[in-house]
């Protein structure tokens, strides 16, 4: 038994945190906000900047197998990285590409290869997409059939779920009106609605419709849920840190605001819930990665992948929202301005807490498993 990040996973997360500290400070996030004033199309991110830095570090392709140029990491080795990407409120679609879509592409490539079902065009597109990920030339997004929002408004590649299977669509060939950008309260978010009426889903884009593909798809969606949870616990940290700094420094009634018990207890509670949300998130990542031992019957319902995932997302959503609320209240009026950085993290928290299923939805999933 050893329930902690692996040395590799921890080292990778530390390296990403250090890198983001210099290439993705709050000022970087604000540039995405500023860009949204004039256009909701994603600003270019494939040039210099954090995206390229993370490509160079091997983050974007980390979960791809070695033979296509990745590092063959399991999701569980990346969960710490997802926390760091959350803590930086990074606008670039790294999480969606690296831990959700890219490994799905790899899974599908393997399935297609084994079954030989897809058309040559789509096999070629698949290779091209994988190459793009390795080169950092494009982001990849997924578009589920239930029409939840697409998390990257102009992904280079799009994996679209439609009746009968999955389609790989070249984002750069999409009609302009197919992905409709949606303005978010978080000005650095770029989400979009997929307008299927303007999409050409033909045999030429159909990847496969086998049971194996469906399994890979479910796994990808679960990774998305846990990766979102990991970002949320990550987001909690800068909110808490900013607040601790502020209340230590701000004086009212002749003493630091942080010396009031009401402030102490709000922040202690927020820290408590944040700390206790981390283990469920990391455990869910381990379950999804098939870490040895997770199949042990001793885990009980928690060993069922969807229960582990939903437990993680519910805990992370609630904890991050609690931290956000405590942070704002303890900042007082200064936190209520857009000149202070707090809102950058807080608004992302509001968005992610309800993305990929909110706490109530995930608890109802767990309830069904427990009480059925």
């Amino acid at each position, binding site marked *: 038994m050893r329930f902690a990040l692996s040395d590799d996973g921890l080292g990778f997360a530390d390296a990403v945190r250090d890198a983001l500290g210099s290439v993705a400070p709050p000022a970087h996030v604000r540039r995405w906000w500023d860009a949204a004033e004039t256009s909701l199309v994603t600003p270019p991110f494939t040039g210099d900047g954090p995206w390229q830095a993370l490509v160079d570090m091997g983050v974007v392709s980390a979960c791809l197998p070695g033979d296509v140029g990745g590092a063959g990491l399991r999701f569980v080795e990346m969960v710490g990285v997802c926390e760091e990407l959350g803590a930086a409120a990074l606008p670039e679609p790294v999480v969606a590409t690296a831990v959700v879509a890219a490994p799905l592409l790899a899974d599908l490539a393997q399935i297609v290869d084994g079954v030989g079902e897809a058309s040559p065009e789509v096999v070629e597109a698949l290779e091209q997409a994988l190459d793009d990920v390795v080169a950092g030339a494009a982001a990849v997004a997924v578009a589920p059939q239930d029409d*939840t*929002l697409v998390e990257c408004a102009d992904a280079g590649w799009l994996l679209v779920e439609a009746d009968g299977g999955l389609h790989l669509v070249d984002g750069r060939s999409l009609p302009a009106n197919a992905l*409709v950008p*949606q*303005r*978010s*309260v*978080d*000005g650095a*978010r770029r*989400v979009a*609605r997929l307008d299927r009426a303007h999409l050409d889903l033909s045999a030429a884009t159909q990847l496969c419709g086998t049971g194996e593909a469906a399994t890979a798809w479910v796994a990808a969606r679960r990774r998305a849920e846990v990766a979102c949870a990991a970002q949320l616990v990550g987001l909690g940290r800068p909110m808490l840190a900013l607040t601790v700094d502020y209340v230590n420094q701000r*004086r*009212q*009634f002749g003493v630091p605001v942080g010396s*009031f018990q*009401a*402030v102490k207890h709000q922040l202690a509670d927020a820290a408590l819930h944040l700390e206790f949300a981390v283990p469920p998130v990391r455990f869910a990542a381990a379950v999804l990665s098939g870490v040895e031992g997770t199949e042990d019957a001793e885990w009980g319902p928690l060993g069922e992948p969807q229960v582990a995932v939903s437990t993680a997302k519910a805990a992370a959503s609630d904890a991050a929202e609690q931290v956000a609320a405590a942070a*704002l*209240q303890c900042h*007082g*009026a200064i*936190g*209520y*301005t*857009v*000149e202070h950085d707090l*809102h950058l993290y807080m*608004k992302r928290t*509001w*968005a992610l807490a*309800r*993305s990929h299923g*909110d706490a*109530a*939805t995930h*608890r*109802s999933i767990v*309830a*069904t498993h427990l009480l059925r």
Partner: protein
Amino acid sequence: MRQTRRVELRWNDTERDFRDECRSWLSDHVPSRPLPSGDTAEGFAAHLEWEQQLFEARWAVVSWPERYGGRDASLWEWLIFEEEYYRAGAPQRVTQNGIFLLAPTLFEFGTPEQQNRFLPRMAAAEDLWCQGWSEPEAGSDLAGIRSRAVRDEEAGGWRLSGQKTWTTRGAFCTHLFGLFRTDPEAERHKGLTYFMVPLDAEGVTVRGFGRLDGDEGFAEVFFDGAFVGDDMVLGEVDRGWSVAMATTSSERGLTLRAPGRFTASASRLVDLARSRDGLGDGSTERSPVLADEVTRAWMDAQAYRLYTLADVTDIVEGRPPGARSSLNKLWWSELDVHIGRTALDLLGERAELVEGAEEAVAGGAWMKAYQFALSGPIYAGTNEIQRNIVAERVLGLPRR
């Protein structure tokens, strides 16, 4: 012998007529499409027009004497007005800070000359007042105010210097009211004076800045030797604290937050829950859990309504609410957050979408309302301060 007082839950005929008139006017005049936010330059202008319409129809300040543009409305009628106003979805009141915070102080402490000069123009939205309480180092702790007013005997007035901040709609207003330190030797609550300041005076600089919801709703106001005459002092010199307390107790008390706003929000929340954007067909397990939250919010809004009716009864019968107004503020501010939060939970993934997003429900109004609600537990004395007040003044715990 005095008549025995009974429970009485009927509005009398005058009150019913008042409600009918109010409802009918609002139904004819409330803009069918919501105005743009009054906390932006463009929206503020639209709201000013609305304020002028209200004034002309004598709905701007119903509880004021007729000579200032009011209707001499009773507290009960004022409650009715507020209920109808919010139920009709009428625009936010950008004149609110003057009418609800400064006016009660003017009525109590102003000279007749000051009252005649300022009240009618305030009612007509000709003068637009913002509050200047907070400073960078004085938020919850108002006694920490550092802005100063120095006597200019020759000019017959005062020179103001220092900085105010978090002044709501300061960038769009014409006047500011607030406290300045007139006795630099005095400590904390002492030696403060209540001033009214035209924002176009020489030596006053206003800089708008962004609020959480993105609107330019806040301003910093810098004073660099700006001159105001003695006629701009409200109440006694060096006694500004007790003058201001009358105002902040209005801010915390009944006048700022009639239940109408919250019962209307709660009704809209119920409507949202019933719609397909809310609980939809109610087929998931998640639905009853959210239905329970909606119900809590609705019940809490009703409790606030009933509590206010009991409060007004007490006031009318001469039992003043006192420190209980801190209870009010805790209740409505936390209720408002709960309503907003529950709406976001109903909207789920789409909660993040705001004005301009085609998929946003109600044009993103719920997210906007939530962000606005989040200021409730912060301004007008944080809820931490309010809880101290309840504990110390209502329950009698030691002040330490």
